[in-house]
C-alpha cells in the first residue's frame, strides 16, 4: 500500500473532494479499480470503524468518511462492473416499518459498501414486502434489519416469518441491529446474527457469507 495512500488518508479524514480527485487521477493513470477498493478504501473504512469503537471518532466523523468513500466508490463502480468483478455479497438493508430513524442503518450501509458488499438500501419505514421483493429481485444473500424503537421491534420477527413463509429463508441470512436489540432478541425471532455496531456488521456479514 503506497501509491494511492492519499485515497486512504482522504477517506480516513472524511475529505470527499480529495478522495474523488485521487480516485479520478488513479483511474486515469490505469490503476486497477479492485485494487483501489481492496488496498485503500476497505482498509480506510476498517480504520474508521476501529476509531469509532475506540471513541476517537464519533458519528460526524464516520458519516464524513462514509461520504468520501461512497463518492469515490461511485467513480469506481462502473469500471468494476465492466471488468466483471463480483462483490463479496449482496445485502438489502432497511429500517423497519413504523421507524423513521436511519442514521445507524446508513452507517451500516456505508461500512458494508466500504467492505466490498453490494448494498441495496431500502430506506426507512420500509414495508415488510419490500424485503421479500429484494430477495427475489436482487438475489441478495443478507437482509439487514434496523430499528431504534422498542415499538417496532416485533416487525423484525414478522419480516423473518414472511421470508420463511415465502420459501426464501434458506437463500438469505438475516442480521438485526439497533439500540433496543439484544443477542437474545435476535435468537428469539430467528435472526442469524445481531450486530452491535456498524463496524461489527462488516465482520459479521463476512462471516455469514463464508459460513
Amino acid at each position, binding site marked *: 500500500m503506497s501509491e494511492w495512500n492519499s485515497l486512504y488518508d482522504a477517506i480516513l479524514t*472524511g475529505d470527499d473532494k480529495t478522495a474523488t480527485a485521487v480516485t479520478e487521477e488513479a483511474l486515469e493513470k490505469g490503476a486497477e479499480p479492485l485494487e483501489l477498493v481492496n488496498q485503500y478504501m476497505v482498509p480506510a473504512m476498517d480504520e474508521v470503524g476501529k476509531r469509532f469503537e475506540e*471513541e476517537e*471518532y*464519533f*458519528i*460526524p*466523523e464516520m*458519516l*464524513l468518511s462514509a*461520504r468520501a468513500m461512497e463518492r469515490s466508490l461511485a467513480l469506481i463502480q462502473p469500471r468494476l462492473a465492466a471488468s466483471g468483478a463480483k462483490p463479496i455479497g449482496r445485502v438489502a438493508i432497511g429500517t423497519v416499518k*413504523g*421507524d*423513521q*430513524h*436511519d*442514521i445507524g442503518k*446508513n452507517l451500516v450501509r456505508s461500512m458494508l459498501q466500504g467492505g466490498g458488499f453490494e448494498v441495496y438500501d431500502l430506506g*426507512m*419505514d420500509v414495508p415488510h414486502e419490500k424485503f421479500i421483493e429484494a430477495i427475489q429481485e436482487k438475489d441478495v444473500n443478507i437482509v439487514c434489519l434496523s430499528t431504534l*424503537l*422498542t*415499538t*417496532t421491534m416485533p416487525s423484525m420477527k414478522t419480516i423473518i416469518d414472511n421470508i420463511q413463509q415465502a420459501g426464501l429463508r434458506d437463500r438469505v441470512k438475516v442480521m438485526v441491529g439497533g*439500540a*433496543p436489540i*439484544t443477542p*437474545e432478541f435476535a435468537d428469539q425471532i430467528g435472526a442469524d446474527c445481531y450486530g452491535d455496531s456498524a463496524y461489527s456488521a462488516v465482520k459479521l456479514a463476512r462471516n455469514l457469507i463464508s459460513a
Partner: protein
Amino acid sequence: MNGRERIFAVIQNKELDCLPLMPITMMFAADRIGAKYGDYASDCRILAEAQIRTAEEYDFDYVSAISDPAREAADLGANIHYFDDQPPAINEANALLADKTRLAGLKPIDPSQGRRMSDRVQGVALLKERAGSDKLIEGWVEGPCAQGADLRGINRLMMDFMDDPNFVRDLFAFAIDLELKFARAQIEAGADLIGVGDAAASLVGPALYKEFVFPEEKRLVDGIHEMGGMVRLHICGKTKKHYEGMGKLGCETVDLDWMNPMDAAREVMGPDQALCGNIDPVEVVKNGTPEKVWNGLAECHRQTGPKYIVGAGCEIPRESPLENVRAITEYARSNQPVAMP
C-alpha cells in the same frame, strides 16, 4: 412528604423520607388508560389523564408533558409522520431545512399560536390544575442539537458541523431562541421544572460538544433559571464523554442513559449534582424481573450516593411488566437516601 416536596428536597439538600422517583413514561402511560399514543401526543387532556393516573397508580413523584420531539418542528411547518399508536416522527428526507438557506427566513413562533406547542402548554396547565399540589410538574423542550436535527435532518446536521460550522451556530441559536419562548410559556402555565431533551448531542464527540452544543445548552439552562424554572437534562445515548460539560450546565438534575456509569458521573459532576437513572429500560425493566429491577437500582444508588433520584435510563417501555414497574416504586419507597458527607 408528597412527591413534589420530595423532588424539591433532593434538589435543595433537605431531609428526605425516601428516595425521589422520576421515571419517564409516555407510551406506558397511554397504555395504562387504554389510549392510542397518537391521541396522547395530540390531545393534552388524554396526556394529562394518563400521566396523573399512572403517577397515582405507581406513586411517581412527578407528572410530565413530554410526548415526542416533533412539536416545535411541526408548528414551524416541518413534514411530520403521524401514527395511530406511535410517537409522531420527523420526515428527515423532506426536513424543513433540507435546504439550509431557508433558515434565514424562519421566524421563532409564539407557542400560544402553535398547534402542537400550544397543546403542550395547555397540558402543563391541566397537570398543574389537577396534580400540582402533590406532584412536581414537568414541561419539556428540545436542546440545541436535538432541535437542530429535527429541523435540518440528523444525517445532514452531523456533516454540517464540518461542512458549514457557521450554519450550525445560526441553527442552534435559532433553536434556542424558540425553546426559550416555549419554556417560558410552560413555566407561566405552571411547570416547576423543564426537561431538556438533547439526544443528538450524544452522537458528537467532546470537541464538537464543547464548541457548538454546550454554549447553547448553557444559554437555554440559564434562561430557564432566569424565568424561575428548574432544569432536568436528558441526553439519550452514551454521554460519559460529555460529563464535564453536562455538570457545568447547572441543571437541577441530570438523567443518565443506562450505558453510562453513575459513579463516574458523580466523580466528574461533583457532590451537588442530583443524578437520575439509570437501569436498562429494555433489558431490565421490560425483559427483566422485579429482582433484577431492584438489584439494578441498588447498584445505581450505591454508585451515585447522595442526591440520587430513582429512574430508568430512558422511557419505561410500553409492555413492561407491571410488577417490574412496581418494583421501581418499591425500591424508591423502601430506601433511604445516602446521607450527604
